[in-house]
């Protein structure tokens, strides 16, 4: 787009240079336009090249994996059976985190934007934003020392009462350092992303549409469902995707909290691992084939993230006609 525009403008400038309209001021404006469109094109290219470079680097470093004999890969059954538990573990942690953080984040954002008096809304928003500034190591440490022991009895209870559901099958971990705990820690870490992005969008809902709804006899909740949420839909999807990106890639918190192990459907037993944590835990001592394995796992994470983003785009595109942008 931006290149087309500047091409056109160049042509116009070239065709009638002596025109009275081409005075100094507008020429200056055009130069500004050109510089800006050049800069933004440049920035776009830089981002694209960086992404491509990352992909190429990962693929190249990971390629030896194809040649390693299956029994020499960690686990002894080939790369796929090494990596798929990690992929599932990564998705588990991220899904738990999203399932918790999305509703909580949206509700908190709505409270701040549409319910709380200004005196309360400001500090609450501020505290939520502060959560984003805490380093993940701190979350991990808190997860091990406070959250895990606190949750252990609850996991026991779950195993005893809901143990027939595979996700809560006992015996529960005595330390509480489980996938569930890791997911909860992650959910707290991504909460500020979802909350502050959603809040930002909620407050931008046109007064026009809020009043339209209220004037029809909507309660505040109905107004939120009729005017605010539809307006914010794509923004919420973006917020969730950004949060998901963080949850998928988070290393320290999971590496610290989770007592890792093989694939495990129960969320309250020790076991499971995520790609990011696997890399963080093993990278320092890895060399040769092991290194290639870890990088290949990283490449998988990269691919998962891309797929997730494409799905998000598809969701957003489906609603485009009704987005109000036309």
């Amino acid at each position, binding site marked *: 787009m931006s290149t087309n525009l500047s091409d056109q403008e160049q042509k116009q400038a070239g065709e009638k240079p002596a025109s009275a309209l081409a005075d100094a001021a507008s020429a200056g404006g055009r130069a500004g336009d050109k510089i800006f469109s050049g800069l933004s094109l440049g920035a776009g290219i830089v981002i694209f090249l960086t992404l491509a470079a990352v992909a190429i680097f990962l693929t190249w470093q990971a390629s030896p994996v194809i040649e390693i004999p299956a029994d020499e890969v960690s686990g002894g059954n080939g790369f796929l059976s090494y990596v798929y538990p990690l992929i599932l573990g990564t998705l588990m942690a991220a899904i738990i985190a999203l399932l918790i953080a999305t509703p909580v984040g949206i509700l908190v954002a709505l409270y701040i934007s549409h319910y709380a008096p200004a005196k309360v809304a400001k500090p609450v928003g501020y505290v939520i934003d502060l959560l984003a500034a805490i380093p993940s190591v701190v979350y991990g440490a808190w997860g091990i020392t406070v959250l895990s022991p606190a949750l252990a009895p609850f996991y026991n209870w779950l195993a005893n009462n809901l143990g027939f559901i595979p996700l809560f099958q006992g015996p529960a971990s005595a330390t509480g350092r489980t996938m569930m705990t890791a997911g909860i820690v992650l959910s707290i870490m991504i909460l500020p992303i979802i909350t502050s992005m959603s809040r930002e969008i909620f407050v931008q809902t046109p007064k*026009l*549409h*809020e009043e*339209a709804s209220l*004037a029809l*006899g909507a309660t505040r909740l*109905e107004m939120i469902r009729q005017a605010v949420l539809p307006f914010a839909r794509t923004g919420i999807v973006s917020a969730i995707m950004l949060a998901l990106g963080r949850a998928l890639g988070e290393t320290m918190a999971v590496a610290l909290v989770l007592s890792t192990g093989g694939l495990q459907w129960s969320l309250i037993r020790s076991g499971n691992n995520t790609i990011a944590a696997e890399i963080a835990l093993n990278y320092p001592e890895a060399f040769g084939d092991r290194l290639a394995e870890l990088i290949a796992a990283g490449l998988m994470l990269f691919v998962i993230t891309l797929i997730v983003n494409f799905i998000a785009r598809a969701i957003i595109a489906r609603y485009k006609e*009704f987005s*109000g942008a*036309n």
Partner: protein
Amino acid sequence: MSKRIDVEHLNVYYGDFLAVEDVNINIDSRSVTAFIGPSGCGKSTFLRTLNRMHEVIPGAYAKGKVMLDGEDLYGKGVDPVTVRSMVGMVFQRPNPFPTMSIRDNVLAGVKLNNKKISRSAADELVESSLKGANLWNEVKDRLDKPGSGLSGGQQQRLCIARTMAVKPDVVLMDEPCSALDPISTIAIEDLIHELKEQFTVVIVTHNMQQAQRVADKTAFFNIEGTGKPGKLVEFDETATIFQNPKQKATEDYVSGRFG
């Protein structure tokens, strides 16, 4: 259904600021009443107190009585949500819900309060409301398309259809044509003539010709200066207000000698 409105000693405040002072007015049912007056004299503010929409603005409140067929809208235990379903409002800028189809826009108010409505009843209501708003023929083939794809004038008629679908007793309009072209304006004015067969219509307008074309009675609001409250200066038959007003201020305003 259509109801009369009687306002007694109404004062409207924005926080400490008295925006509209001591309004008394009696509006007949099945009539069109126009509010005219200079900018900032409190027409919108007063209009919004007729369906308690001013309460949406933080710090805004009203004192006094607004009675709908004798029932005080500000009485104890009266829910503003109920008031607004009896007194509908059309705004200055057309505001159909952008994420909804034309059909869903018409039904937006009807579906509130968990009301269930059968598919066939909904179809009928959509058709009758859109016909009532003189929009049916233009949109009947694209009811599932977004309302935001219509022209400004069509959007405004869609908003009127949406308001009519709730079957209110009163329809308030705050400068409904000021964002529209002349042709769309005529369409809305024609519609207002038809609306008064069913509803009590109150319209704020900047356009004095418009007041004369649509209104049975006209109320002139004025303000003595910035920071002063707006007041209802004169209320009478439209012809009297424009040809034979009793107040000097009204005469100055309608003859264009104002300000």
